[in-house]
């Protein structure tokens, strides 16, 4: 998850300043709802609308990274937070520690407006038939391809391994996603790789590496590589935002979720178990799903909402499922292996 949020989470400082501003106006007599969120997730006008409707005061704390989010939630000082926006991996960890409160769908009428894909049980936020979080925004990691080199959109992740495109493929330099990607391509469970499958997948990733032009870390880097080399296809870690960046740079590129599916981070709203005002917190979650907020989120931040399919994902581009990220079996092990793969170890070393 290192850089997966890189693009959208730039305005951390601005957000923190806004949070401080709101806090100073907090009033003791009315209930105070404490919200922990990412920049752009809880803009002041949405907060004001909520405050006006529910007669509550909202304190928004903005975080810029998963690490900070974890630290804020772990901080036992102060009243703590009532409601949090976090991705499915973080939420699964919170749920495993029993820190989330179950949600009653009757309290959340807006959920009915969500696309079916978000209403079904999502791994990591559902336990024992109870739902613990409601999806808010997401970004899938599809394939970006050069329309001039592809007569038809690539259908499968295997295009990344296709020797036809050797030296014209870009992949993201990230250990966790790389193994998940390889497992997905091989038809395996992406987040629960069996121990005896790690080495074969590592060798598979070496084969991917041999087919690459390069690995990239920053979205700008990928644009640069498109500019300097005739890149054919790229695994887009930054999803549609990366697509937009390339199109803005003048490239005629297409975007597809291949039939094996696309990994995707999914940020959800969840109510914390220690909150003393869970009903108000549920109101907040419901408020965030209202079209006046969710659709506006897409307009303002370019992030996908859960009410409408993004324009880039029409039926021709959405060939497979969107696979929400989950905690993986052993991140450290994946990282160790990936470093060696990147460094150029030959397959026989795995």
């Amino acid at each position, binding site marked *: 998850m290192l850089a997966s*949020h*890189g693009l959208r989470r730039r305005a951390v400082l601005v957000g923190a300043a806004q949070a401080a501003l709101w806090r100073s106006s907090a009033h003791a007599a009315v209930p105070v709802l404490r919200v922990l969120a990412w920049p752009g997730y809880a803009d002041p006008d949405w907060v004001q609308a909520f405050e006006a409707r529910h007669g509550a005061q909202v304190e928004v704390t903005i975080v810029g*990274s998963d690490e900070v989010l974890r630290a804020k939630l772990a901080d036992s000082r102060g009243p703590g937070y009532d409601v949090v926006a976090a991705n499915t991996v973080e939420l699964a960890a919170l749920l495993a520690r029993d820190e989330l409160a179950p949600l009653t769908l009757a309290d959340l009428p807006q959920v009915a407006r969500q696309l079916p894909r978000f209403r079904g049980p999502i791994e990591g936020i559902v336990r024992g038939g109870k739902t613990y979080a409601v999806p808010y925004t997401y970004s899938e990691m599809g394939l970006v391809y050069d329309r001039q080199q592809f007569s038809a959109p690539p259908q499968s992740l295997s295009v990344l391994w296709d020797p036809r495109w050797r030296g014209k493929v870009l992949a993201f330099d990230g250990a966790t996603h790389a193994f998940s990607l390889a497992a997905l391509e091989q038809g395996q469970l992406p987040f629960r790789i069996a121990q005896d499958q790690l080495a074969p997948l590592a060798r598979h990733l070496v084969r991917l590496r041999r087919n690459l032009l390069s690995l990239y870390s*920053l979205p700008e880097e990928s644009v640069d590589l498109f500019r300097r080399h005739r890149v054919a296809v790229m695994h887009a870690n930054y999803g549609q935002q990366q697509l937009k960046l390339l199109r803005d740079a003048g490239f005629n590129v297409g975007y597809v979720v291949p039939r094996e599916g696309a990994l995707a981070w999914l940020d959800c709203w969840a109510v914390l178990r220690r909150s003393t005002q869970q009903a108000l917190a549920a109101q907040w979650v419901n408020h965030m799903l209202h079209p006046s907020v969710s659709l506006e989120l897409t307009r303002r931040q370019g992030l996908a909402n859960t009410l409408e399919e993004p324009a880039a994902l029409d039926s021709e581009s959405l060939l497979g499922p969107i696979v929400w990220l989950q905690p993986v079996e052993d991140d450290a092990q994946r990282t160790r292996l990936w*470093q060696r793969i990147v460094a*150029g*170890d030959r397959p*026989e*070393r795995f």
Partner: protein
Amino acid sequence: MVRINIGQRLGLLLASFSLLAALLLGYMTYTAARDMLVERAQRTLLDTTRILSSHLQAGFGQLGRDATMLAMLAGGLPLPGGAVPTAAQAQSLETLAHMFRAQLLARPGLLQARLIGLRDHGLELVRLQRLADERIVRVAGAALQEKAHFPYVYETARLTSGGVYFTEFGINREDGVPQEERAVFSVAAPVVQGAAVVAVVVLRVDAEAFLRHFGATLPAPYGFYLANRWGDFLAHPEREKAFGFDRGQRVLVQEEFVATAALLSGAERELVFSHTESPGGAQIQAFLRLPYGARDDGRFLLLGLSQSMSAVLAEAQELGGTIVKMIAVLALVATLLAAWVSRVVTGPLRAMVQATDAFSLGMPHGALPVERLDELGELARGFRDMEAQIGQQMDELNRSRDAMTHLAHHDPLTGLPNRRMFEQRLEQALDRARRSSRPCALVFVDLDDFKSVNDKLGHAVGDAVLQAAAQAIVGAVRQVDTVARLAGDEFTVLCENVDTDDAAQHVLDKLRQAFAQPLQVDGRSMVVRASMGISLYPKDGDDARTLLASADVAMYQAKLRHREISQ
């Protein structure tokens, strides 16, 4: 309440003005000096940054030449073309390994020297590397890795002989050893055989050591910044801000120093500005684009230096102290000047005030500053003229008042006191007589047949007769006695201190003698007779009315006697 005179007020005003002017001048001098210092420091800082930039470019150039030289040497040797190298090819790899070792020994900043073939996914052919304990080892066999997906291979492969490729600065993770995870960049040169690039020589450079080498020549207070072309800090005085992207948290130069966005976009090539928002206090910053990599690929680094504003302004503070001292001296001078002015202005004014006071009391006063040519002189002259005019008018007024008084109390024809004045004198004389118990006499003189004089000789002669009679009466009595004309031809004489009847008789005798001779009227002699009656205080009465009546009666009897005599 303290009375502040005009001089003090003027002095105070002058002192305030001079002090204000001094303060203003001091402040302006200070700010101008400060601006000048800042500007100079900015220029110097930019110059220093330029020098540093050219040093860095020279350093990069040297590295490029090293890589090119090694690539040229490798190009002249038979290199492996298949899976199993020939003996000659193996020998050339040995030779290159020696050269690489020598190179690493000669250049302590180099971490690695490699020959990477373009075949077999960029498999390393020779790899010499410096370990953390400074040992230089050759990595061989199965540990050699495939590097085709690194830009130093795929970018360098596109170059022609003599070309050099510089990688981006980054944290080295290629070795999978935490100790080796440090900031590096690599320099690569193509190995050309025939017309084709067959391999690349790659030198990995310890970025920090490389930069330190140049940074060491900088004076201590400078802060050193380096950013890549996207703005990510590669070097920052706060170490944790460098290579933020490697930790998934980008720290960007254009966010800390907004102005540098123009450098990143290419709108500017160099920039110097004051940055006031830094936590360690204000500082001046110079940034410039440092061309990086091949001449034509448009890549650059952002090189920056900072200098603390307090160091820059130390001189200005000193100047500020001097200015404050100067202002203090000026204030003192202004105060003295003000006191002097106060004196100069108030001296003459005070003289005028005293003169006015004296004048209003009718007393003499000292000289006025009429000789001055300024407004005070004018005022003094005006005052003098006014004084003269008032004096003149007062004299006239007095004269006219005296004349009025005279007219009210005297008979205009003879100049003798009239009835009113006589009555006053009589009352006063009676007062005195009562106090001193000394008698006084009142004589009534009435001209006989005066009516016929008027009728026969005319009023003019009548008047002349009256005047002559008056003179005769005045000449017949003592100077202290009062002679008055009551009306027409009636005269009275008041004689004080007439103690005896004899003395009273003497008065009457004298008067009778005066009329015994003809009087000189308009140059001719004329006989004028007068009847007289006397009354004495307190014998004939003790108040004016009684005395007058008594004298009148006596006079009337005398007149009757005169008629009898004349008939």
